[in-house]
């Protein structure tokens, strides 16, 4: 048995942890929405400013899940796996990198390193010193059955917890849903397709 013990949604104008809103977007701000969340939550990780939106969103959502579920730090460094996916791969950064050499004179190495969707897994692993299993998949839409079956496979192979995520980032459109699955769950929801479908909500399509 396994449980969804915490989850986080970020859309273009909302940010919720376990269903409760934690930040509201200021449409007049010069900061991006992700930067607004970063500041309002008083995160201190200067590397955030170098990241692309995909990694920024993964950083914020994973940090919020950690705050909601502080016992995560009790796991050994190999016991937390990460299973992420989306429908756009890294297209948002790809377009920016292509512009750097087509319109702005030279290919930008700082942009190029973010032109792979799995970089966000690296960013989260580096921050937390997690040496567990990683997988990033591209699917046409969020597929609860895939996440349930593969996270359970990872837990049958030695992972004690799996941080799962759907990172739909496309220009200004944001549809992010991260959730933590643990073998031991205090007051968590049973990890199955029905519950995951319910939690994901209609926003994640």
């Amino acid at each position, binding site marked *: 048995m396994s449980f969804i013990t915490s989850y986080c949604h970020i859309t273009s104008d909302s940010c919720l942890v376990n269903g409760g809103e934690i930040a509201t977007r200021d449409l007049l701000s010069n900061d991006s929405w992700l930067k607004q969340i970063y500041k309002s939550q008083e995160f201190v990780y200067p590397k955030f400013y170098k990241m692309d939106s995909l990694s920024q969103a993964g950083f914020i959502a994973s940090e919020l899940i950690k705050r909601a579920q502080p016992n995560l730090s009790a796991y050994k460094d190999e016991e937390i796996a990460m299973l992420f996916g989306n429908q756009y791969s890294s*297209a948002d950064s790809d377009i920016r990198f292509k512009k750097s050499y087509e319109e702005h004179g030279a290919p*930008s190495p700082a942009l190029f390193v973010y032109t792979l969707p799995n*970089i966000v*897994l690296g960013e989260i692993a580096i921050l937390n010193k997690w*040496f567990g299993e990683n997988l*990033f998949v*591209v*699917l046409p839409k969020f597929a609860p059955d895939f996440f349930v079956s593969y996270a359970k*496979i990872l837990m049958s*192979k030695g992972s004690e917890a799996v941080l799962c995520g759907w990172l739909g980032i496309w220009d200004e459109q944001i549809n992010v849903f991260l959730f933590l699955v643990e073998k031991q769950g205090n007051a968590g929801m049973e990890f199955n397709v029905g519950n995951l479908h319910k939690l994901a909500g209609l926003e994640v399509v």
Partner: protein
Amino acid sequence: MIYIGAEEIISPLGKSVEKNFSAILENRTGISVADRAGFNGDSVYISNFLDLSEKNKFENLIVAILDQVIIKIDERIVSSARTIVLLSSTKGDLDNNINDQFGKTILTLATRYYLANQPIVVSNACISGVLAINTAGNFIKAGLYDHAIVIGCDLISDFVLFGFQSLFAISSQPCMPFDASRNGITMGEGCGVVVVSNSEVVFNEKPLKLLPGTSANDANHISGPSRTGEGLYRSVKRTMEMNNLFSADIDFISAHGTGTIYNDEMESIAFDRLDLTHAPLNSLKGYFGHTLGAAGIIETAISMQMLRNQILIKSLGFEQTGTSKELNIIKENKPAELRMILKTASGFGGGNASLLIQKP
């Protein structure tokens, strides 16, 4: 028991696994100089198709290789509800549609081959291929599917070439993995496929055994390998422990060996920590260049051919030890008794993956 077989390759070295393997037995390379192909008109060494139309190249390659693999297996499994197709790729069909790099190809595959299940794209930088094969094995072991067709494909584009140039990662000569004078990668393009199944009889030619593999993040840097080889060390260690194997059981290592200073050094440290410096080892990047998401599949397919033919293949481009830990790098092709081979991969995002293939 999980089987792996029906390996196929389409690369600049040839359009079938047999042609690729015979080219490699002659130690021929697909790498040649491409005039003014680089940014600012630099000439660069690459391993590219010289005879394929650019139009729909990504999709055409995948369709071509699937057509080839189908005649090597019981063709009924392709559209079976018990089969999953995995596609390993980093940049997909980027030149045709940067907004949706896989959608059209996946749709073509699903309709052309009447696939029962939504194919899954595995996109984890340079470890994608090894990870996709492991994912296939995991699915089958868990009983979710009986068969998996695992395809790897990536193309050379201005995008990836200029990108690696911007990182000063492109070699000024054909890449020289593990050699003292190595100075970077050589880009390659190609397509490979393997079939993973719980049934021996779906293969026309006797398959090999796939043992469960693992991945591990370096937790170190998004675009630079760990100096201690931590992620690779952990992945290989876990894979060997999971299969109750010891370093003496490994007859050959198909390493990642990109030809950059830091990657190859990292691998030597990890293999030294794993007590695997005795095992004959090669990198196949000197033949194919670095084919990114296809690399793990193509290199596994060649390793399977080595196992079938009981021969060790020279690590092309290597002459003189250039890593702090000395590895047993294969200098000439030579017949050998091979039973257990280890395939590894490491890549951007800190990913490392490993798998084992055994001759039954």
